[in-house]
C-alpha cells in the first residue's frame, strides 16, 4: 500500500468515524444528557415539595389531632353494632325505647335499602310507623335530637287517623318516620 493509498484509507476511516459520531453517538449522548437533566430537575422539585410538606407537618398533625378528638366524640354517637343486622336491631330498639317514653306506640319497623358508606362508617335506615298524639310525636322528635346517637331524620309523614272525628275526640296521629343511624363497620374503609 502506497503512502497515498494509506492516506485515502485513513481519511475515509476518519470521515466514517466523524459521521458515525455526528449522526448517532453525539445525538444519543445529547438526548441522554437532556434526559438526565430533566430527571434531576424533577427530583429536585420533588425534594423541594417534600421538604415543604414536612415543614408544614405540624399543621397537619394539629388538624389530625383535632379530628381525632372529634372522632372519639363520634364514637359515642354511632350505634353499638358491627353489621347491618346488628345496627338495624339497635336502631329499632332505641326508637322503641323513645316511643315508650313519650306514650307513642311503635306499630311497625321495616329496614330500607341504604348502601351509603363513608370511611369506616356505614349507614342503616329504617322506616317506622308510630301512633301518638301531636305532643307525643313532637316530644319523640325532640328526643331523637337529644339522643347521644347521631340519628338522622330524612322524611316524616303525619296523617290524622280519623279526620272526621269530633274536636272533643282524642287526637290520634299516624306518623311514618324515615330514620338513619351510623355504625362502625369492620370492613375496609371506602376510598
Amino acid at each position: 500500500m502506497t503512502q497515498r493509498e494509506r492516506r485515502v484509507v485513513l481519511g475515509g476511516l476518519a470521515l466514517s468515524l466523524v459521521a458515525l459520531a455526528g449522526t448517532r453517538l453525539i445525538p444519543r449522548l445529547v438526548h441522554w444528557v437532556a434526559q438526565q437533566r430533566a430527571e434531576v430537575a424533577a427530583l429536585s422539585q420533588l425534594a423541594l415539595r417534600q421538604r415543604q410538606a414536612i415543614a408544614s407537618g405540624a399543621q397537619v398533625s394539629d388538624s389530625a389531632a383535632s379530628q381525632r378528638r372529634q372522632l372519639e366524640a363520634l364514637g359515642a354517637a354511632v350505634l353499638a353494632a358491627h353489621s347491618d343486622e346488628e345496627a338495624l336491631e339497635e336502631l329499632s330498639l332505641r326508637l322503641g325505647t323513645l316511643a315508650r317514653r313519650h306514650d307513642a306506640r311503635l306499630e311497625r319497623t321495616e329496614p330500607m335499602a341504604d348502601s351509603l358508606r363513608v370511611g369506616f362508617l356505614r349507614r342503616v335506615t329504617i322506616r317506622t310507623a308510630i301512633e301518638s298524639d301531636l305532643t307525643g310525636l313532637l316530644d319523640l322528635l325532640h328526643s331523637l335530637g337529644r339522643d347521644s346517637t347521631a340519628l338522622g331524620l330524612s322524611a316524616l309523614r303525619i296523617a290524622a287517623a280519623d279526620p272526621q272525628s269530633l274536636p272533643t275526640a282524642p287526637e290520634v296521629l299516624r306518623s311514618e318516620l324515615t330514620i338513619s343511624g351510623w355504625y362502625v363497620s369492620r370492613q375496609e374503609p371506602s376510598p
Partner: protein
Amino acid sequence: MKPVELHVERGRLKATGDGSWVGEAPYGGLEDLAETVGTLSREMPRARWGRRPSVRITIHPPVAQTRTLEGLPSLRPGDLRALVAEQASRFFRGSRDELVTNAGRQPGTSGNVVRAAAVDRHTLELLIGATRDSGLSVGSVGTPVDGAWLELLPERERAEQRRRRLRSLALHAAVVALAWLATAGWYVASLRTERQRLDRELAALRPATTALASLDRESRLAARMLQAVEVSRADYLRLLAQLHAVILALPDSAYLTTVSLSARGPGSVTGMARRPTEGLSAFRAQAGLADARLKTAGPHIPTPQAPWGEFTIQFGKDTVK
C-alpha cells in the same frame, strides 16, 4: 504581527523584525553564513510566548540567479518547472544536482516569456538549517524576478511544512476535542453527583413523607366521616324546623289531615279550611315556607252544606341532585 524577513545579498544579510527593528550583518562566505544568521536571529526581538516566528527568506541576485527565458514550449506550470529543473545547467551556472530552480510564466506579457530562478542547493540548505537552529521557522524562501515572487523552497521542505501544519492542526483539534470532552465529562459527573445527592435526600425524607401522607389520608377520611354525620344532623334539624313552621303557620280556621316532610325534597300539607287562600298567606308568612304554593283547593265559597274546603299546599324544592 509583522513577518520577519531575511534578505540575503552578496556578502551581507539584512533582517527586519517585529515593529521597526532592522538588523544587518556582513558575512564572508558560506562558511560563516550560518553563524551570521544565528547572530542576527539572536538580536531579533521576539515575543516571550506563542509560536516560533516564521521567516521569509529573500535571496537577491547574484546569490540567486534569475533569468527571463523565451522560446520555451508552451507547457503547464508543473511541466515547465520540471523542464527548467531538468535543464538547469543550460539556463544557469552550475549543475542540475547543485541547483534548486523554479520557473513561471510571466503574466501580462505577450509571447512565451518565462521567468526562472535558481539558487545553490548547499547555500539554501545552510540558510534553512541556520534559520531553524536559531529558533525560527522558515515560511518561504524565494527571489523576486521582475516584481514577481519565485518560490525556491525545496519540495522536501515544503512537504515537511505541510506535515508540520497538519500536525499542528491535528494537535489543536485534539486540544479542542479534549477540552469539550472534559467539559462534557465534568457536566455529566456533576449531574450524576446531583442525582445521587437527591436520591439520598429523597430516601431520607421517605419515612417522614410516608407518615405524613398516611396522616393526611386518615385526616381526610375522618373529615369525610364527620361531615357525613353532620349532614345527617342537619337534615334532622331542617325537618324539625319545617314541622314547627307548619304548626305555627296553621290558622285557627283550618286543620290539617296530612303532613308530608322531606329533609331534601319538597313538603306538602293537606287539610280543610273555610278559606284555603287564608291558609296559604299564613304559610307564606312563616320563615322557611316562603315559597308555599296552593296545589289543589276545594270550593272558594263554602256553603252550609259544605262549610269546609279541602286544600293542599306544597313548599320547598327538591335539593337531591
